[in-house]
């Protein structure tokens, strides 16, 4: 994180006007070809919408933008709990997107755009989306004074799962909304004002996240052989799309294209007494500590590992995840009574000649 926003570098306007579109055209063509060639759409998808989504992913490499954005989210566990903020956003082509709370507050964050979804399979992030949802362009609108195409992702039953307002010129996402199955909004964000300029030269995306933190398929296979869970997918159509090392923990990121779940595994045993603001509840004979968020956060002990989950996924997905990685049961706990009982059992087994 940084405490200040870097100013946008501005090149000569004439060069920008000429070089930007000249470089953008081949990249947009490549994106469109990729979208059409990738096996990431099914008969229910609008190919135009799929192409727009691929362009949206490539847009941060082509343009500068900065603006003011509002964000709001509702807890997946408690619909009455919500959060919202107004943030300043600055993005450099191929680089990080810097986000900070609006105003002079020192709080600042960096969206490093490190996610490349290297484990997502064919079609990358767009493939994740179109495998689980039908996508279609449903209309045009305006966001912060700029015309935008509206792409909708629908569930099998036809209910909208998400809508995306993409800038008509650059396909940059200007507004996002995600809906629960009952139609209520789960997250919403939109630019109140935004300035977009083409990059003066082609900028290859840089990764602030070093590659030695990345975990590939062979790394995951090795971890699984060593006793780590590292599930390939989670119930509800959530597929593993990224995995990396974070300190002494392993982060596994899952998505169905709309909602996301991050599972952190680390060696040790949860020290629940030092958890602040978490509520304990019994799940499958064990104890899970949670905060409703958003985003919802869970942590629990399973065997000799601590599992922590940060998620904006529906509650059903989180319940399914707990069934996949159940907490340590009370019977298996290392409490004194359990130890005494186990010890007595061992002594009896020694004395039992038929054992």
């Amino acid at each position: 994180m940084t405490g200040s926003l870097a100013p946008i570098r501005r090149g000569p306007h004439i060069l920008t006007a000429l070089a930007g579109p000249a470089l953008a055209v081949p990249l947009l063509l490549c994106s469109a070809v990729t979208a059409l060639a990738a096996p990431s759409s099914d008969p229910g998808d609008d190919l135009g919408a799929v192409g727009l989504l691929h362009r949206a992913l490539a847009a941060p490499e082509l343009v500068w933008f900065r603006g003011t954005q509002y964000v709001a989210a509702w807890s997946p566990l408690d619909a009455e709990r919500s959060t919202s903020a107004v943030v300043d956003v600055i993005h450099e082509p191929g680089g990080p997107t810097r986000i900070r709370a609006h105003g002079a507050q020192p709080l600042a964050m960096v969206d490093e755009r490190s996610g490349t979804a290297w484990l997502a399979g064919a079609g990358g992030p767009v493939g994740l989306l179109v495998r689980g949802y039908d996508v279609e362009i449903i209309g045009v609108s305006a966001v912060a004074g700029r015309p935008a195409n509206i792409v909708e992702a629908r569930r099998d039953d036809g209910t909208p799962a998400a809508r995306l307002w993409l800038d008509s010129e650059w396909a940059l996402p200007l507004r996002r909304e995600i809906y629960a199955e009952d139609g209520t909004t789960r997250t919403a964000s939109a630019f109140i004002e935004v300035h977009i300029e083409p990059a003066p030269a082609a900028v290859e995306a840089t990764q602030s996240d070093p590659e030695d933190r990345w975990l590939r398929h062979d790394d995951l296979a090795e971890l699984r052989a060593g006793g780590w869970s590292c599930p390939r997918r989670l119930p509800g159509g959530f597929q593993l799309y990224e995995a990396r090392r974070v300190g002494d923990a392993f982060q596994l990121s899952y998505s169905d294209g709309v909602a996301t779940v991050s599972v952190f595994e680390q060696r040790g045993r949860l020290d629940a007494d030092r958890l602040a603001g978490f509520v304990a509840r019994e799940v499958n004979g064990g104890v899970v500590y949670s905060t409703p968020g958003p985003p919802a956060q869970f942590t629990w002990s399973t065997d000799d590992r601590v599992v922590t989950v940060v998620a904006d996924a529906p509650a059903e997905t989180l319940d399914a995840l707990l069934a996949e990685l159940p907490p340590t049961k009370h019977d298996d706990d290392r409490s004194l009574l359990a130890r005494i009982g186990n010890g007595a059992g061992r002594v009896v087994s020694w004395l039992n000649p038929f054992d």
Partner: protein
Amino acid sequence: MRHLGVIVTALVDDQLGHDDRDRALAHVTRCEQCRMAVELERQAKAALRRLPAARPPASLVASLRALAEPGDPLPPPRRPLPGADAGQGTTVRDRAWITRRPPAGRPGPVPGQRRPEPGVRTRRDRVRVVAVGALSAGALTMLLATLGAPATSGSPPASVVPPIRQFTVEHAKATGGLPFAEPAAVVVPAVAGDRR
């Protein structure tokens, strides 16, 4: 002829039976040697009777009396002594209230010194029994807890408090490449605080 020998003392102390005494006296009338031995024995006995009475030390008397003082009951035996009279049904348990002597090196009460009340000694013994029992139970608990500890191949797992805020920021970063995910919607409210 056989002489009286050791029977001389018994003859002088008048401990022989009627027939033995007649035969011994008949022999003394015929044997001068035995007659002299009997006479010497009688003179020695008379000399001892004429000695003045000796007074033993008071401490010796007190120690000797303490040997006869009543003590604590003996521990009950598990079974009757061999050879106990079945008709009387007497066992060591029945003799539990027989007085016992104090152990060696432990002087008994001297005249004028008050002995501890029997009840005090009983309470002390109860405390000892309870203390020994508690220690034994604790040791057994520790032993069972040690035996019942889960088998681990190495050191026990470390105590962990997950860095929730860092994990939330990392989660937001991981969503940056997804078209519908909005990292700011994840990380800003989580860091800035929430409200209903």
